[in-house]
């Protein structure tokens, strides 16, 4: 029981982490708190469903194609709806993303309807049996893929000039311009990464939680919470925050009551942020903007 809950919590936590990385990278690289971010994940679950179930693409190919398509949508949204905005108050831009998210949900309802859709699993086969717990192959693949994605992100930001340009723009936009880094390029870069991450996360989770046009808000709330809980300024913030949320969710549902899963997790986030406003990894007194 314990191990099974642990596996389920880790799976969900890593998916939240991957989504939260996208949220964090956009927030830091372009100063946009993207409330539409969850809708990209929801869109990914639906695209994966269509590619894998309707078109009949092999699941692995469907994940890749979904990630690329969602990445393109993400860049298009940035270019068409966020780049032209003439005001720069973060609050107005955040409300704009609320509008974009709502619009995207409208389009998804139009195309896929309100139904919960059952997407084909990534891998099939007998579950692994270990210490009396059975853990599905899909869970193992999901955990491994998410860890690989996080490792790849780490490499991008620690080893490539592209990643360092994004970091530079996040730390000091004026200094970044003096390095020949255009704001436009940075914004496209961060939306590209966020779209890819949302696409991968959505495609991976679709067979586990089903595909639905209504799932977006849960993802953005969890991503937002995971990013701030871990620490918005820390690379590992979303990873830590996502895992904490996923595990807390699974253990509350397993040992307390699945009905109070959401309130317990969210109340924990609120209390944790009151005690440590800069997140679990941030310094207690660090100023956050």
């Amino acid at each position, binding site marked *: 029981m314990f191990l099974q809950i642990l596996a389920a919590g880790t799976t969900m936590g890593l998916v939240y982490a991957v989504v939260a990385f996208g949220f964090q990278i956009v927030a830091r690289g372009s100063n946009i708190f993207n409330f539409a971010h969850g809708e990209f994940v929801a869109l990914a679950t639906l695209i994966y469903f269509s590619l894998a179930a309707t078109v009949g693409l092999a699941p692995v190919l469907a994940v890749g194609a979904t990630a690329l398509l969602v990445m393109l949508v993400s860049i298009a949204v940035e270019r068409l709806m966020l780049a032209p905005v003439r005001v720069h108050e973060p609050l107005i831009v955040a409300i704009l993303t609320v509008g974009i998210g709502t619009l995207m949900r409208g389009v998804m309802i139009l195309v896929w309807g309100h139904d919960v859709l059952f997407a084909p699993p990534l891998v099939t086969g007998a579950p692994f049996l270990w210490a009396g717990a059975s853990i599905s192959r899909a869970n193992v693949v999901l955990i491994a893929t998410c860890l690989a994605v996080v490792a790849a992100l780490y490499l991008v930001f620690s080893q490539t*000039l592209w990643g*360092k*340009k994004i*970091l*530079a723009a996040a*730390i*000091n936009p*004026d*200094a970044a*311009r*003096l*390095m*020949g*880094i*255009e704001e436009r390029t940075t914004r496209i870069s961060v939306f590209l990464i966020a779209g890819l991450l949302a696409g991968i996360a959505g495609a991976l989770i679709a067979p586990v939680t089903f595909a639905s046009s209504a799932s977006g808000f849960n993802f953005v709330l969890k991503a937002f919470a995971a990013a701030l809980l871990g620490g918005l300024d820390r690379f590992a913030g979303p990873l830590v925050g996502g895992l904490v949320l996923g595990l807390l969710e699974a253990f509350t549902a397993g040992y307390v009551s699945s009905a109070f899963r959401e309130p317990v997790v969210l109340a924990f986030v609120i209390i944790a942020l009151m005690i440590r406003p800069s997140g679990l990894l941030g310094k207690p007194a660090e100023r956050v903007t």
Partner: protein
Amino acid sequence: MALLELRDVQAGYGPVSVLRDVNLAIEADEVVAILGANGAGKSTLMRAIVGLIPLQHGAIFFQGRELTRMSAAERVGHGIALVPEGRMLFPPLTVLDHLLLGSNPSRPSRAELDERLQRIFTLFPVLQERREATAAVLSGGQQQMLAIARALMSRPSLLLLDEPSMGIAPKLRRDIYAALGQLVSSGGLTVVVVEQDASLALRLVKRVLLMQGGRIVRDGSVDAFRSSESLQRAYLG
């Protein structure tokens, strides 16, 4: 043809104008100091030249090309570099990262990049020793050297320095100015330096501009500046 030319420049922040009617021509290989009190518009002038703030009126030309509508990133690509006030380093990135980012506007080849790094490390040996250290752990003087080195990595033809000696111990100031002297004497670089404390800067430059209330109120040779007692008193204390 002047290397840099400003015509009737007016600039500032939001609706407020800090610079007014600035006309200025700087020839290639000149070394110029801009002096003036706090709030005279020196930093604003630097930021306007490099494009960190837009012009409200007027035009800027560099090597005969009009820059007025170019972004800061484009201007840097055309050979202007700014060492900004307060250095503006990226604390979590290493010295080497800074230098690589600094070379970004001119996109050098691998060999060209190595050669530039060598030049920087000859000029500032301490940066070679500390190339894997993050900017956050460098001393103030080392940070300033890194800021200058980062700007030089793009091989600019015009180097703008905004208060390079601010907040730095006197010995390190002399080191920094010694390095700037070397750079100038090796030729091919035009330098404009803004300072509040003029004594070091005056040893480096040939020409002095005085700013007051957002205008250039005096423009002359360093000798003329030295021979004017009132100016000496006002700016050298």
